[in-house]
């Protein structure tokens, strides 16, 4: 049972981690993107639709990246270039993605949504490591997207913290006027961040449909994008922290499967609400946003 719990913790943490790493990049550049839920949903749908049509999982993954990037490009134009309120624009993006994916789903697969499945992404066992007790299956017998998500953690930590590009990105998030005065191009930096985040959110969505559920249902992202926003806060705007927070939330979600089987007297709705309850509780206990980028959520208008 512990082995299964460890495996589903990783499985549940992966989409959160992919989305939260994207949101981390965006927030370090000074933008808060509530539309991340929509980007995940778009990636989930585009991925499964293309994989179903072509029969090629890799084409599905590429389409998922494309879906997430397209959604974020709309958000970037509105939030960066038109400098509108980011929270309200992000909410609109979520509605847009829910509407478009719902419509296309009904158009393509019929009003009730004919049940269909795609060939799942196969787990890749890493030789003898996968046979390690307890953690072998969880860590070394997963789909490629899981390995990618965790490999991205050090890469993104280094890029944000040590590279020249990361320094510019952080400047855009802390003091956009100064960054622009230095010729760093705040609009360009925020666009790059949002497009990268779109790709990661799309991958997170692809994980849901191509590696986990093997199908699509309306609203399959089920608030994971919003939980990813909390993951970034709990992770203190730092890639390693985000990874740890994703694992914590992944474990909370995985816990519902264990508890549901073990304790039937407790209403299942409590388990379903657990990740959301945990989000509120952790944020309330941690309080404060002192580590947040200074210009987070402030539209920047170039003088």
């Amino acid at each position, binding site marked *: 049972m512990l082995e299964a719990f460890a495996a589903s913790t990783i499985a549940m943490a992966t989409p959160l981690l992919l989305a939260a790493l994207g949101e981390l990049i965006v927030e370090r550049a000074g933008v808060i993107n509530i539309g991340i839920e929509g980007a995940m949903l778009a990636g989930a749908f585009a991925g499964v639709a293309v994989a179903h049509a072509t029969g090629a999982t890799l084409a599905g993954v590429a389409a998922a990246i494309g879906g997430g990037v397209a959604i974020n490009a709309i958000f970037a134009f509105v939030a960066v270039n038109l400098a509108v309120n980011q929270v309200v624009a992000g909410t609109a993006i979520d509605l847009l993605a829910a509407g478009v994916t*719902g419509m296309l789903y009904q158009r393509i697969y019929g009003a009730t949504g004919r049940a269909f499945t795609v060939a799942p992404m196969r787990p890749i066992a890493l030789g003898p490591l996968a046979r390690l007790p307890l953690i072998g299956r969880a860590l070394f017998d997963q789909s490629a997207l899981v390995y990618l998500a965790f490999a991205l953690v050090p890469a993104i930590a280094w890029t944000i913290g040590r590279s020249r590009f990361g320094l510019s990105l952080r400047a855009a998030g802390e003091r956009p006027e100064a960054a622009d005065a230095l010729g760093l191009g705040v609009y360009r930096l925020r666009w790059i961040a949002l497009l990268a985040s779109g790709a990661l959110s799309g991958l997170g969505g692809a994980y849901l449909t191509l590696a986990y559920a093997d199908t699509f249902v309306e609203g399959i992202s089920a*608030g994971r994008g919003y939980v990813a926003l909390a993951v970034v806060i709990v992770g203190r705007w730092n890639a390693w922290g985000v990874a740890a927070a994703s694992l914590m939330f992944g474990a909370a979600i995985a816990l519902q499967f264990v508890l549901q089987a073990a304790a039937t007297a407790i209403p299942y709705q409590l388990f379903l*609400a657990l990740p959301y309850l945990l989000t509120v509780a952790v944020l309330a206990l941690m309080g404060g946003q002192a580590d947040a980028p200074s210009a987070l959520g402030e539209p920047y208008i170039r003088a």
Partner: protein
Amino acid sequence: MSRRLAAALRPAAAIGCALAAMAIALALLGASPLAVAADLADGAFGNWIAFTDTLARATPLVFCGLAVAVAFHGALWNIGADGQLVVGALAAGALGPALAGAPHTLAIVAIIGAGGLAGALWGGLAGWLRARRNVNEVISTIMLNFIAAQLLSWAVHGPLMEPSGAFPASRKIAAAARLHLYFAPTRLNLAMLFAVALAAVCELGLFRTVPGFELRALGRNRRASAFFGLPIARLTVGAMALSGALAGCGGAVQISAITHRLYETISPGWGYEAIAVALVARLSPLGVVPAALLFGALDNGSQAMQRADGVPAQLVYVVQALVIIVMLAFDAAAGGGWRELLEGGAPDRPDATAETCDA
């Protein structure tokens, strides 16, 4: 063209743009935009029943639109009107069956009051978390929406389930607690009038009272408000509680006037749609009424549209989203007005409250 006139025309232009984009999308989907528009209008206003149904569908949108408008004036980004409406409906549905034998007026006051109180607690919790624990209200209200949905699901599958246990729905509320339908079979009832009266109260409260002024000041500049010694924590909790109460009343009214019992799917997402309503109303409480009617008509008409043309009803989400985006873009391009509000009040920057007060 005068500035005022231009500002007044912007919502109409935003809706026009969104509808034009929708027409293009319909054409791409292979449906005739004109035929779809005709079916949509027919479904919304085609006959007396359709028209009164539009009014009934607009009513919860007025409540939620007011909730959003009040919170947004304080730069409190309440995305949680949906959860607040759900807990309001939950309280009303739980209390309703117990009101048998009570005088009608008292029962109505009790059931709507219960809904308002539950909504106030749900919204006030997010306000308290923001004021005392500095938790971003955007995230907390969204999380509380999901929690409310699970709470409702548990209630109608568990303690509040109707006696036969066949359907995930609650028992019917007592007849005394039902808002009278005057012209059955239409759904015309007093709730719409109540909603309009509330809009007027909100308008006066926001623009003619001291707390209303303070809330708007808070929304425009949190730092300066702290500097001038406004009770920021109290305003934040109060505004979020009021916002939640408005949405909660909407949920209770829906139970009392329309469904008479709880279902899992009591809200089709009114709390999110209300953001579009409030923006089209330019955050004016009185403006929320016509804006809600417009979106209520769209919702109602879209059902007919789905039946007649096979166009998925999710199209209305796309329209809502486009209206919000176009509305924001127009205001950004025009500058002035409430633009400063909608771009001030970053969701949760570390408040410089303490330093500012010491300085």
